[in-house]
């Protein structure tokens, strides 16, 4: 009965920090607008308006983030917003900034219409004319002829991005779950929308969806158990219970289950697992290669970069704010996962024959590297991970952008054998790709090296030297296949029927330029960004 009486208490209207949450709100708002456009605007205006809307929204949102950071929300002014549901602090703002930048350049990738050969005189992008039409069916032909294009991709992407912006900010388990779904569902759909090789694309979508749902079910059950343990969903509350100081409003009399460690441990494990799935860490990585390969390459790029950033953000907050009390329980697990990810990712990648799959495995290995920074429970650890994410995401985007440009008769030529001698055909592009590969491999003077160094140093500082050793070995193995691609591009004779490199529009070009600059600058003069990440290294509670 008591709990009902609780409910009868007047519900005070929630106060809501619009400013602090503006970035997310802007993006989601724009997404909603996008849906309306889809609903009402005539077809021929949609593309233009969607692109403009998305770009504007992201730009404004980014400005908002910068503004918030400038007002000290990253540091002294950090606050818990939305009735304790969201945290607006250093990590949040940093990651939101990164995510918005990723989104910003990804829009260009999505909107690129120069790559595909024009159909019936209309320039088309790399997304299905009409997702619902069966591949090769009459409906599809009709859709193509009448020049349909799936402009829904923009709102979908904005929605996903909205979820991602929430993810690292989530300060209680409810929001964590919601954000997870909000970012996942649109991605499932986006995966299914490839124009070429639609069967693969759809298969990717199915796998991603089923496995994703499966994972989120685990996460949810974990949430339930944690709630059962602590009697609250808010991170801070749980942390208090763990540290043995339960927040007052729970009636001890009924808290029979409170503080039952089995719930805590199992729940914690399940929640962590749900996040590791998004991160793509062994043994929850198996969706990555297939999805990366099947999804439309722009989506893959966006997903590979943004999802990792968001998911690691969430993982960091969960581990640092909620579970530091049980550090000794989850650290060994994460050690294992990190080691397994680094080694498995690097080793399996050696024998890959498809560029996108190759990058997928490399992303698994990188997840391992980043985890090495995560387990270093220290501000350096956080900031190093933040820096690594920023560096890594741009390299990834760039790499996938390059892949969209190398095409032959049936779309992108992703099979490695076709890349032979690319360096002879177009040295510049091959050089750019080589730069990204070297950055992945962590060669000095690239952002990859700075990131790797930061992460390993943090790990070593907190006494995880073995992780560093393994990481180093894994990097050596990984170097092997990055180098293999370079050899292929530069040292082997071009094949006669080899792919050609299409000259993209300004959008892709500029976005490639951004990635290159980011890769080099973060490699040569990382100090400024290290400072940023350093200032952003503290979580608010």
């Amino acid at each position: 009965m008591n709990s009902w009486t609780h409910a009868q208490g007047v519900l005070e209207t929630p106060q809501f920090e619009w400013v602090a949450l503006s970035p997310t709100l802007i993006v989601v708002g724009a997404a909603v607008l996008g849906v309306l456009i889809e609903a009402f605007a005539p077809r021929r205006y949609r593309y233009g308006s969607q692109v403009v809307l998305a770009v504007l929204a992201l730009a404004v949102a980014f400005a908002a983030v910068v503004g918030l950071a400038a007002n000290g929300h990253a540091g002294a002014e950090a606050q818990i917003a939305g009735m304790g549901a969201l945290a607006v602090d250093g990590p949040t703002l940093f990651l939101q900034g990164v995510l918005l930048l990723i989104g910003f350049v990804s829009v260009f990738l999505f909107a690129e219409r120069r790559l595909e050969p024009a159909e019936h005189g209309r320039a088309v992008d790399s997304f299905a004319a009409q997702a619902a039409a069966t591949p090769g069916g009459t409906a599809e032909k009709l859709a193509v002829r009448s020049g349909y294009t799936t402009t829904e991709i923009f709102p979908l992407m904005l929605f996903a991005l909205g979820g991602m912006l929430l993810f690292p900010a989530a300060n209680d388990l409810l929001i964590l779950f919601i954000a997870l779904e909000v970012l996942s569902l649109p991605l499932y759909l986006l995966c299914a929308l490839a124009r070429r090789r639609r069967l693969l694309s759809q298969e990717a979508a199915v796998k991603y969806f089923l496995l994703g749902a499966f994972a989120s079910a685990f996460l949810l059950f974990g949430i339930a158990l944690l709630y059962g343990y602590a009697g609250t969903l808010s991170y801070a509350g749980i942390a208090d219970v763990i540290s043995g100081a339960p927040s007052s409003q729970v009636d001890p009399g009924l808290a029979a289950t409170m503080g039952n460690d089995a719930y805590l441990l199992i729940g914690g494990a399940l929640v962590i697992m749900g996040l590791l799935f998004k991160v793509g860490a062994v043994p929850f990585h198996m969706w990555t290669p297939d999805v990366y390969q099947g999804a439309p390459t722009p989506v893959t790029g966006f997903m590979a970069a943004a999802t990792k950033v968001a998911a690691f953000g969430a993982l960091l907050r969960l581990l640092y704010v909620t579970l530091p009390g049980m550090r000794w329980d989850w650290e060994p697990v994460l050690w294992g996962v990190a080691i397994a990810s680094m080694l498995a990712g690097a080793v399996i990648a050696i024998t890959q024959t498809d560029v996108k799959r190759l990058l997928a495995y490399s992303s698994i290995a990188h997840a391992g590297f980043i985890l090495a920074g995560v387990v270093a429970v220290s501000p350096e650890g956080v900031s190093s991970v933040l820096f690594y994410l920023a560096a890594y995401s741009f390299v990834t985007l760039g790499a996938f952008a390059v892949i969209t440009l190398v095409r032959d008769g049936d779309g992108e030529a992703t099979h490695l054998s076709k890349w032979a001698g690319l360096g002879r055909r177009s040295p510049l592009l091959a050089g750019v790709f080589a730069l990204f590969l070297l950055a992945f491999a962590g060669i000095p003077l690239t952002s990859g090296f700075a990131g790797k160094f930061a992460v390993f140093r943090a790990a070593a500082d907190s006494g995880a030297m073995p992780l560093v050793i393994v990481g180093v070995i894994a990097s050596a193995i990984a170097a092997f296949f990055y180098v293999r691609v370079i050899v292929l591009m530069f040292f082997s004779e071009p094949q006669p029927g080899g792919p050609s490199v299409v000259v993209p529009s300004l959008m892709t070009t500029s976005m490639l330029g951004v990635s290159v600059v980011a890769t080099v600058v973060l490699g040569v003069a990382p100090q400024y960004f290290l400072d940023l990440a350093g200032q952003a290294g503290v979580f608010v509670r």
Partner: protein
Amino acid sequence: MESLIGLLVAAPLLGAAVLLVGGRRLDRFGHWLATGLAALSFTFAAVLFFDMLGREGADRALSQHLYSWVPVADFQADIAFQLDQLSMTFVLLITSVGTLIHLYSIGYMEHDVRRRRFFAYLNLFLAAMLVLVLADNYLLLYVGWEGVGLASFLLIGFWQHKPSAATAAKKAFVVNRVGDIGLAIAIFLMFSTFGTFAFGPVLGSAEQASEGTLTAIGLMLLLAACGKSAQVPLQSWLGDAMEGPTPVSALIHAATMVTAGVYLVVRSGAIFDGAPDAQTVVVIVGAVTLLFGAIVGCAKDDIKKALAGSTMSQIGYMMLATGLGPIGYVFAIMHLVTHGFFKAGLFLGAGSVMHGMNDEVDMRRYGGLRKYMPVTFVTFGLGYLAIIGFPYLSGFFSKDEIIYAAFAKGGTEGWILGGVTLLGAALTAFYMTRIMLLTFFGEKRWQRDAEGNEPHPHESPKSMTIPMIVLAVGSVGAGFFFNLNHNFVDWLSPVVPTADGDSPISHGMVSVAATVLMLVGVGAAWLQYGRRPVPEVAPTGRWITRAARRDLLQDDFNHAAFVTPGNYLTRGLVYVDHKLVDGVVNGTAAMFGGLSGRLRKTQNGFARSYAASMFGGAAILIAVTLLMRAV
């Protein structure tokens, strides 16, 4: 005066540089330039010599410090020369014989297109040899030591188009390098013992060092000497070295370079005096080589190889003498000088013969040449008499002194050594007479060669005969002059320790015995080759003859002991490097490849198996967390 010492070296060095860099445009007069510079160097030597005579025995030594060469902490090597009586003796020998042979070569190499290079190399040799004998520290000596090795390499292999020549050159250099290690290690030992390797301090404070150290240094020096002076066991290169043009054999492989070993031992006398064991080894090496060379000399039909054997044996005499200590040093040097004259003369004679006989070297194809080339015959004959120790010619004095010293060693060793040296004298007489008879006496045995053109033996041009004459004079008179009221001994005694041992038998007795044995040798040779006609193809003699023809199986031994195993070793290592060391590397790569191939099978495309792995992963996660808490 000191400054002349540097010029002594500089003149031929300049010649070598100019001739090598100058290129074809110097072809016309290059040889004259070289000869002139050699002569210039000789004049410097003469000037210095008379200047030296002008001073008292004690302060005759000159020295010139050019510059500090390699200064690293305690290791202070300087380019500095030292000219004392011992060096002076060598300088005179080298420059005089050297100049003569330059002159001789002008005629001998007339028809060779690469004559300019030849003279450049000759000059290079002179320079290096002078550095060797003028150096005032062992490191600079080492430079000269390897320098002459280089020159000898270049000159032996001068006719590079002949594979045999190239091989011989390589062999000479490599074998010498083995000896050089000895010199190097000796220097290391000096440095770590005395903290320096300059003659003065080292030899000055030698007696302070422990005998063990001195013995080690002595043996190492001996090793070096063996390499350079073709002493057993490093003698094998000298015979092949005869592939080089004859003037080279005369200058380098008879008169000067091969005697450098003797110089080294004498120069380092102070060290050997402190190390009797080392001395014993020196004596043994000398004695063995003495007989070894003589026996080989008896069997060879190639005139140059026969002479080479003789050279070895004569140097054996010198080595033995040096091993005897102060008693022997002076006479070793004396024999060295006289030998320089008559052996050079003999080689030039041989060269002149070959010159007249279309480069035929097989003595069984000669015969009766005295009619055709009288000058050669006479000069060669005088050299012959000198070497076999014909009374009152050069060899007579120097050799008898050595034999006497050998007896003077005393005790059984004395008798053994004396016996060996006497036996050597007999053998010398035998093989030299053999050469003489085969070449100049008997009836002519040459016939048309492969191209069918018959040799027309003729006397050689002036430029060749004059040096021969001069050397002949030297080989006749030198010994007598040296022995005249102990000229030579007095000359060297300030720098080279001397002593008078008392021998069981008197000088007279020694001379008589030596002369008698000499006659025996001559007689034996006459019985064999003088009395009856010589077969044109060598009869397969007794085992000893066959062995001697093959240089007493030295090459066979070296092959069996070093070359063949070496080849196997290198081949084996190449295999090991490829399969094992590199195999590990490639193996690692392959290993990861295979692992990867196996692991990627897990990615089988079935969503449900992916789900299964997730499920299992979750299970593990939970299990581990619970366990962590449990333990």
